């Protein structure tokens, strides 16, 4: 199901689009303060760009770029960043998720500390959403069987 596409046109166009798509997703995450968007939306776009890469260039190409362990790590890391920022505020003496406490280490006033705290939180959300969306997509489109396992079993169903 996630085999390489043999259509040269789609492959080439996807290849050209993917970097721009990823940069656009990062832009959406970073500029959630000023325009619509934020961590979740950007994460979804990142996940979609990886899904595009997966269906056009195949699993191996993607694995070379982002191994599965890294993906799992990113998925967990996102929530850990979010909860960790909250915990950091708690350790600095405020309540949980009180970003204004971050002004001590960031060296800016409270309002901007909150702004930066929002940025960090959005980054965390983006990581998690990217990894998880991609993972859900991968699981559903392959039925959860990794292609390498399939190959080991000698079956090549789905590698059309």
């Amino acid at each position, binding site marked *: 199901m996630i085999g390489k596409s043999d259509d040269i046109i789609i492959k080439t166009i996807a290849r050209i689009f993917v970097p721009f798509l990823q940069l656009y997703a990062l832009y959406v995450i970073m500029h959630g303060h*000023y*325009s*619509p968007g934020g961590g*979740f939306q950007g994460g979804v776009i990142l996940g979609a760009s990886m899904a595009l890469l997966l269906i056009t260039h195949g699993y191996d190409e993607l694995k070379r770029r982002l191994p599965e362990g890294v993906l799992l790590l990113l998925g967990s890391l996102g929530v850990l960043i979010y909860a960790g920022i909250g915990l950091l505020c708690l350790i600095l003496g405020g309540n949980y998720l009180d970003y204004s406490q971050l002004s001590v280490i960031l060296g800016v006033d409270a309002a901007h500390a909150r702004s930066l705290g929002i940025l960090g939180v959005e980054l965390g959300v983006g990581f998690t959403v990217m990894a998880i969306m991609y993972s*859900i997509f991968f*699981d*559903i489109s392959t*039925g959860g069987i990794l292609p390498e396992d399939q190959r080991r079993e000698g079956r090549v169903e789905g590698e059309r």
Partner: protein
Amino acid sequence: MDFIIAKYNYWIYITLMMIGFYAMIAKTNLIKKIIGMNIFQTAIILFFVSISYKRGGATLPILTDADAHGGHVIDVAQYLNPLPHVLMLTAIVVSIATLGVALAIAIMMYRKYHTLEEDEILKAIK
């Protein structure tokens, strides 16, 4: 007449909700049920977004440059109510997460029984 004009948005959301609810209960196909679930959740989101709307030229819940740096008093009626939007972002996320899990369970079942009809699966289990 006034009643209909003032509230037609709510009527549409109720219609959508009935459609989704009917699909969730009556259809036997699992994917159809999931589609119904999606419609149902979207209807509720529509309801919330309708709450946040203000007639009379209110603009998006993002401060314009003049208001952000002008230092003058911000007119509340000029901006839409942001809170329901926030709640609905969360609800959309929940709906997509539910969709993922539901599809995973449906695929799991298809793998075992080779059908997506609920009654046929029940027959196969018995």
